């Protein structure tokens, strides 16, 4: 499912789980690195989606983050993909929260919450990839089989 060269979702999930079960001490000892890793895992998740649609994942940044650029790229022509827009922004927020004060007493919890957000992104994109081979499932998006729907539009009503 995930193109060669990119992290497999199982591998991504394992990395996220490792952060979730790590002790506060272990997380605090390398807080900035963990925050960066979560961000790059998020990018890998979105790269898989973009690549599966036959596009080259972008290298540009939006608001300073490639993750947000990838999300925008992934949603192009696919409005339902915006259901993960705020999830990506939360991931960026948690990254910044840790990076701005890596020695904060609550850094372990902040990283775990960031990992839970990353996991949600993985589950969301995984579901998108799984359903109908890049198909549509979202109730808040363009219709399934849009072209057919357009062709049949209310002429038959």
């Amino acid at each position, binding site marked *: 499912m995930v193109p060669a060269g990119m992290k497999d979702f199982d591998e991504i999930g394992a990395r996220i789980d490792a952060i979730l079960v790590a002790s506060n001490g272990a997380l605090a000892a390398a807080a900035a690195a963990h925050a960066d890793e979560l961000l790059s895992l998020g990018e890998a998740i979105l790269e898989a989606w973009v690549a599966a649609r036959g596009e080259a994942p972008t290298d540009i940044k939006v608001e300073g983050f490639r993750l947000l650029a990838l999300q925008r790229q992934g949603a192009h022509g696919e409005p339902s993909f915006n259901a993960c*827009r705020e999830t990506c922004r939360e991931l960026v927020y948690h990254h910044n929260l840790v990076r701005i004060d890596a020695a904060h007493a609550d850094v372990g919890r902040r990283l775990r919450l960031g990992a839970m957000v990353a996991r949600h992104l993985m589950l969301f994109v995984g579901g998108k990839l799984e359903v109908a081979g890049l198909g549509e499932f*979202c109730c808040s998006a363009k219709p399934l089989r849009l072209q057919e729907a357009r062709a049949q*539009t209310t002429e038959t009503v």
Partner: protein
Amino acid sequence: MSGKYKQVAYYPGCALEGTGHAYNRSTRELGKALGLDVVELKNWNCCGAMEVKNVDPKLQTYLSARNLSIAEAMGFDTVMAPCNGCYHNLKKAEYDLSHDAASREVTGRLSRKAGHKTYEAGKVTTIHALDWIKDAIGEDGLRARVKNSLNGLKVANYYGCMYTRPRHIFPEKDKGPGSESTSKPHFMDDLLAAAGAENVEFPLKTACCGGAHTLSDSDTSTKLVLNILTTAEACGADVIATECPTCHTGLEMHQVRAEKVLGRKTSIKILYFTQLLGMALGLSARKVGVQENLSDSSDLLRARGLG
């Protein structure tokens, strides 16, 4: 009380007559307790939810336009929809009828065929139940009416993904202080805080719950919901407050399924914000339909002296 929205047209939608009945009941009871009237649309129809949209989006625009037309014919300029799906679809119809000539043409044709006046954009404003309470009563008004404070109750506010998306159909949002935010919604947080609740920082408040996966790919839905539940617990919440019947039912159903299928038990409770506010105003748990929820919160409510 501002006097605004003292009486509004009420569009409950299909879910509130079925799995979301507790939301219907608690919305009506909350309104009564606050001195607000809701007048249900006569002979309303389904908003088309996701099914019609997937087959014929313009037919869906018509279905919502018909409901708006009924509100107008009943003399209302505001219709309140507590369900995120209905709210979204009414707002989307309003947008499409303003911006898309083909939508206007189809709606006009079907309205004539059905024998009712064609709805024209701009005649009726659609609001959510959150807007209704926030604008009609406000935090100060609510605070003054609280009889049973939610003090000490830690709440994760879950808005779901349709309350704020897509942004362009909600022109009133993101207008600065006092308006709702599409990236970080807060109206439910504001209202529950006014009733004494302690809102926890919850990073998945607008995340997808996999609602539309429920039938086609239940495992994905279960995993998404489980992540929402465990994240809310990790944030220290006792309760997830909801404002959408589909999200609410999804959270409840998949909480049970996560335990059965994945062996993952979570203990967080799930309640509609209207139930929590109703109990804060002194209504009984039964009055706001807590017994109709799948998620059994009776122990928690008893321990907190609520309901």
